[in-house]
């Protein structure tokens, strides 16, 4: 059984199975695959044999009128119906199980936003893009979104659920094989859709308990220091540049500004810092920290030449705190063709989680 | 559809075997067109059903802001206009074209009355800020689902009002043709088809009135 499972899984290019539900779903997959392939090839082989058997002998050959007996049509209807309904009879209860979290499952709040995943665990700890769960314990996810629809997808769990703005959807899983599995966003959400990658880390339960304990202590300390905690709390780690990149993504800067030199709705940020910029009206200015900050707060005051018709940038006065604006400026400074770029990622981004 | 019938002097297009088939085809085409209109409105009825189910209280309170007196008057006006159209069809079949012109004229006046009253209602909602979605700024009533009521209210009555305007223009054109004495026992299809359209507009209002004003 195990060998057959592995064989079929490899044959169908399916990823690892990290939960019992994933395994059972694969069994349905194999059943559907084998039975429908049998049915399909029987039909198609029959058709192909007919093609060879009944070749036309002369141009105006006559053929008998062959009309079906009721039994033929009954078989044509009955066979596929039984097969199809059996797929449904197996599949639907599985789906119902996925929609009904067991009592006592641990709740994790998942928030999708352009273009990252945030996870909040019971008692305050939270993380970005990396979800750590204990092996062998049920986890219920309550998903929501800050902006548009995202879809939380873990191929190894064969599990996917849309995250809708302003409301919650739920799903659950019980991962039982420790390991690291990719998380994708499966609902198209804009420029960073394919870079909205996360990682599910399934830890042995004891290890997870210890990690969680550490997290809780950490967030209590932070709380005592007067920092707000909760899902809104931006993570503190990472360099200023990395923070700037995140804030820019969250604020939607990349809807208009690129970081790879291509021109878009707004000027590109690549090599922007320190460059002499020609403004609308003929003036030239050096893009320094002051200019970049002014452009965030009063975007239409000094518009770069050629962007007058596209001067659609809203002011970020009041939306960006001073440290955030500084972080974005740092991020822009880091975007140089002669420096390693921070953007296009290939493969999942592995972001370390606090306390580990 | 009507134009095909009118184009040839004999009114029989070359590809139809006889007049009877041609008019049967025209009426069938009109009924199919009416079904597309019904499905067009169905979207808004679905949205109404869903949001009323989700926000019963908000819809309840918001519908109290609707002007029932004007809505009820408009109901009477539209139903009566349906009667005049039905009579116009009757007289068109008899070939009494002057009566047709008169009845259609009255119908158009009813339609105009409807639109004027609707305009007053819209004006009141406008000055009070009882507007759809993010335009809603009426301080007298706030809460979940309230602005959604006005979204649906304006979309439904707006689409319906557009249909009233289209109906009035079509009836005006038919009345002009009746004035030229075109209709009679052998040919009254344009009156019937435009009448069908007008009745559908009435039929939709029959549902809109209780849903938007009285719930």
């Amino acid at each position: 059984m195990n060998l057959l499972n592995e064989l079929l899984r490899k044959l169908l290019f399916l990823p690892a199975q990290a939960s019992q539900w994933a395994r059972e779903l694969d069994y349905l997959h194999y059943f559907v695959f084998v039975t429908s392939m049998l049915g399909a090839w029987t039909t198609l082989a029959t058709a192909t044999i007919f093609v060879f058997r009944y070749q036309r002998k002369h141009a105006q050959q006559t053929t008998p009128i062959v009309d079906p007996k009721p039994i033929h049509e009954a078989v044509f209807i009955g066979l596929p119906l039984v097969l199809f309904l059996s797929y449904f009879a197996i599949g639907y209860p599985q789906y119902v199980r996925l929609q009904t979290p067991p009592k006592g499952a641990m709740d994790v709040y998942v928030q999708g936003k352009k273009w990252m995943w945030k996870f909040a665990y019971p008692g305050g700890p939270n993380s970005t893009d990396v979800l750590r769960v204990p092996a062998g314990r049920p986890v219920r996810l309550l998903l929501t979104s800050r902006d548009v629809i995202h879809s939380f997808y873990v191929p190894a769990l064969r599990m996917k659920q849309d995250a809708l703005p302003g409301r919650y959807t739920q799903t659950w899983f019980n991962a039982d094989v420790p390991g690291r599995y990719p998380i994708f966003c499966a609902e198209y959400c804009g420029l960073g859709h394919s870079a909205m990658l996360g990682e599910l880390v399934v830890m042995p339960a004891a290890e997870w308990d210890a990690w969680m304990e550490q997290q809780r202590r950490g967030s209590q300390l932070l709380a005592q220091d007067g920092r707000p905690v909760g899902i809104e709390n931006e993570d503190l780690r990472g360099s200023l540049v990395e923070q700037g990149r995140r804030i820019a993504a969250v604020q939607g800067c990349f809807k208009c500004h690129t970081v790879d030199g291509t021109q878009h709705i707004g000027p590109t940020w690549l090599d922007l810092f320190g460059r002499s910029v020609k403004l609308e009206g003929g003036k030239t200015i050096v893009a320094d920290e002051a200019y970049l900050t002014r452009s965030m707060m009063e975007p239409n005051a000094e518009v770069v030449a050629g962007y007058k018709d596209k001067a659609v940038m809203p002011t970020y006065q009041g939306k960006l705190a001073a440290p955030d604006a500084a972080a974005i400026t740092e991020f822009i400074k880091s975007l140089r063709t002669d420096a390693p770029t921070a953007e296009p990622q290939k493969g999942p981004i592995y972001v370390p989680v606090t306390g580990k | 559809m009507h134009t095909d019938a009118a184009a040839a002097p004999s009114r029989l297009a070359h590809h139809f075997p006889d007049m009877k088939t041609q008019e049967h085809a025209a009426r069938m085409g009109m009924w199919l067109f009416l079904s597309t209109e019904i499905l067009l409105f169905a979207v808004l009825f679905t949205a109404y059903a869903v949001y009323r189910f989700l926000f019963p209280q908000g819809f309840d309170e918001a519908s109290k802001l609707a002007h029932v007196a004007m809505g009820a008057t408009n109901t009477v006006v539209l139903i009566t206009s349906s009667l005049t159209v039905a009579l116009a069809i009757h007289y068109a079949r008899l070939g009494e074209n002057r009566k047709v012109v008169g009845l259609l004229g009255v119908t158009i006046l009813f339609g105009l009355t409807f639109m004027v009253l609707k305009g007053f209602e819209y004006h009141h909602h406008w000055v009070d800020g009882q507007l759809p979605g993010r335009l809603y700024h009426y301080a007298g009533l706030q809460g979940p689902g309230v602005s959604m009521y006005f979204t649906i209210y304006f979309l439904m009555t707006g689409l319906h009002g557009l249909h009233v305007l289209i109906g009035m223009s079509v009836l005006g054109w038919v009345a002009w043709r009746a004035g030229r004495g075109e209709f009679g026992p052998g040919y009254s299809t344009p009156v019937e088809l435009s009448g069908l359209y007008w009745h559908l507009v009435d039929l939709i209002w029959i549902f809109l009135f209780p849903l938007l004003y009285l719930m």
Partner: protein
Amino acid sequence: MTATTHSEGKHLGPVHYVLVWAALMVLTGVTLAVWKTDLSHSGRVVAALAIATVKAALVAVVFMHLWEEQGIARLVLLVSALFVALLIGLVMADNATRFPYANPPYSESWKDDPWRNEAPPMQADPGPVRVSPKTATEHPASHKP
């Protein structure tokens, strides 16, 4: 249209039209009367929709000549009505049986929230529907029905 397309004896005349018009007027009155009664909310909804359906049927059968029309027109109307009913019915069936918090926030299905306080709200709770009538009368042009 020629009279030959209709089977004889089924024709409707002005008398029928006026009678139907009178019936529609009466039914409009009944709708308004029901609205004024103390009937429960759902009772009024059902009554209003039932009356509207009867009125619509009268318009369709008499004014729109379904009475004397060939089968295809009736079929078209019935099929459209069926599809409208199924569209509304199936969509509402989804809203009514969903995970409650997958419906819009603070809608009816969020009312019996066993852990409302636990869920981090995505936006400020707007609270219940608030009516403050004074602002409505402040404006000279506004009036209450």
